[in-house]
């Protein structure tokens, strides 16, 4: 796979001096689905807006298919489709006309067959002659997607495509995204729903306060999520982990009143039985035992709170 979008040390300070992006570096591979996960105000929209030309970068470099977004903006932008976070459409215009406008803006001639294909795929064909204002919220979001696809982009940005959308529509949206990927479109979507990243992304990036904290394959994140933790609470606190328990790689908590053992739920043996035997051998008395499973959510919360600390 080759890099289709390359972001190097991208910074953005708004006119009021607020630094919304603090040096983001990221390469996106052709054909992948990348989910950018981050809380409100993290800088997700700013990042997309800067790449797409809606705001000006303060410094750094972005290339799309090798084309610089400033010096070679025409070639760069032709490759990009954008579905904005907020629904913004001309209310009185017919659906099909707004989609035709989008195609024209990107320099392409009228192609009715292509537009029909897009509208059918998005279940908008029956509504093509309706004014935009007659559509439901979910339909309007589909119109935005149709507009973004009208010029056959190779990269599609979806800024919070499922925010405030009901469960059914969210599933539909995921289906649309998967189909696009099957057609070779590279997709970058932002979300603050962890399940969404889990459900459709190939890679997950975590962004907070304008910094990209982590970018990793979803599968390896899932592998980390496959870890389970068992916390053993002791009747009497200890100063250190006893020698016989060293090889379990335990972490002692707080004042030594408990320790944590982590194991892989997919592993053949969990090692819990031998651990508990060895705990007894070491002469420790258990007060309580608790297990928990790490999730993407937890990884995310740890990253984000670690950042703020």
């Amino acid at each position: 796979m080759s890099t289709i979008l390359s972001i190097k040390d991208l910074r953005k300070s708004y006119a009021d001096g607020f630094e919304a992006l603090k040096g983001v570096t990221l390469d996106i591979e052709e054909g992948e689905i990348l989910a950018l996960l981050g809380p409100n105000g993290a800088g997700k929209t700013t990042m997309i807006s800067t790449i797409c030309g809606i705001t000006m970068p303060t410094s750094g470099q972005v290339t799309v298919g090798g084309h610089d977004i400033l010096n070679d903006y025409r070639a760069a932008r032709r490759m990009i489709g954008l579905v904005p976070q907020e629904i913004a459409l001309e209310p009185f215009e017919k659906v099909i006309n707004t989609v035709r406008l989008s195609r024209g803006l990107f320099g392409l001639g009228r192609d009715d067959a292509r537009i029909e294909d897009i509208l059918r795929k998005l279940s908008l064909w029956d509504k093509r002659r309706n004014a935009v204002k007659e559509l439901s919220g979910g339909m309007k979001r589909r119109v935005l997607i149709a507009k973004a696809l009208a010029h056959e982009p190779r990269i599609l940005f979806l800024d919070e495509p499922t925010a405030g959308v009901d469960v059914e529509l969210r599933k539909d949206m995921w289906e649309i995204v998967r189909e696009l990927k099957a057609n070779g479109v590279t997709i970058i979507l932002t979300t603050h729903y962890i399940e969404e990243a889990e459900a459709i992304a190939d890679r997950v990036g975590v962004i907070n306060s304008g910094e990209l904290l982590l970018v990793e394959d979803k599968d390896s994140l899932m592998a980390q999520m496959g870890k389970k933790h068992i916390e053993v609470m002791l009747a009497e606190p200890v100063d250190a982990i006893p020698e016989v328990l060293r090889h379990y790689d335990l972490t002692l908590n707080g004042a030594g009143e408990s320790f944590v053992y982590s194991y892989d739920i997919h592993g053949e043996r969990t090692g819990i039985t031998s651990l508990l035997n060895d705990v007894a051998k070491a002469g420790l008395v258990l007060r309580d035992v608790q297990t928990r499973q790490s999730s993407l959510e937890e990884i995310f919360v740890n990253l984000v709170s670690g950042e703020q600390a």
Partner: protein
Amino acid sequence: MNWAAVVAIYRFEMARFFRTLAQSFFSPVLSTSLYFIVFGTAIGSRIETIEGVSYGAFIVPGLVMLSVVTLSISNASFGIYFPKFLGTIYELLSAPINFLEVVIGYVGAAATKALFVGLVILATATFFVDIRIEHPFAMAAFLILTCLSFSLLGFIVGIWASNFEQMSLIPQLVITPLIFLGGTFYSITMLPPIWQTITLFNPVVYLVSGFRWSFYGLADVPIFFSLLAIAAFTGICLAIIWWIFKTGWRIRS
């Protein structure tokens, strides 16, 4: 040049106009008729002729200018203000287009609509008075240039405005007074000398005078100055728009 984009913008803007074509046609017909009934009949019966032209015929060029200027500004300003207001401007900003293409699309559409109304008014006027056009090419050139230059001004107003009140500020506070004081309904030679001098600072005087000259060969100021004035005005508007897009003023943060 991304001509496909220019055509797409132009078409999209004209579509709105065609949706309300009847309204676009009948309202100027009605208002022109009213002007002739009020000005032509009531006042015209007291002022017989101005330099050999009947008063009714004399005000026709001014009437056309008044509508064309007002409409050019409002068409173009709303044309670009709505995308800002609705948020659809994101698409213009992220498309592979430059400022010139955006301006040609929006200003072209706004000017076309104003031109259409201007011609409707002219046609309506022929039902009330005898009109003579001595210099048809000059007439067409003045009309088209006026539509274009004031559409450019409207485009600037639309980009500058951040609410609906501001949208009507410039037209009402600046343009309408300038037009009424610009010799639209009278010859400035009818004014006391001191006012004639003051009036020469009003750019609309040059427009109306040049336009009227193309009809009746009568001008308040030399025709050369009229041409110069409209060329300079167009140039200034273009320069401001170029600067707006270069700096992203009020559109690209």
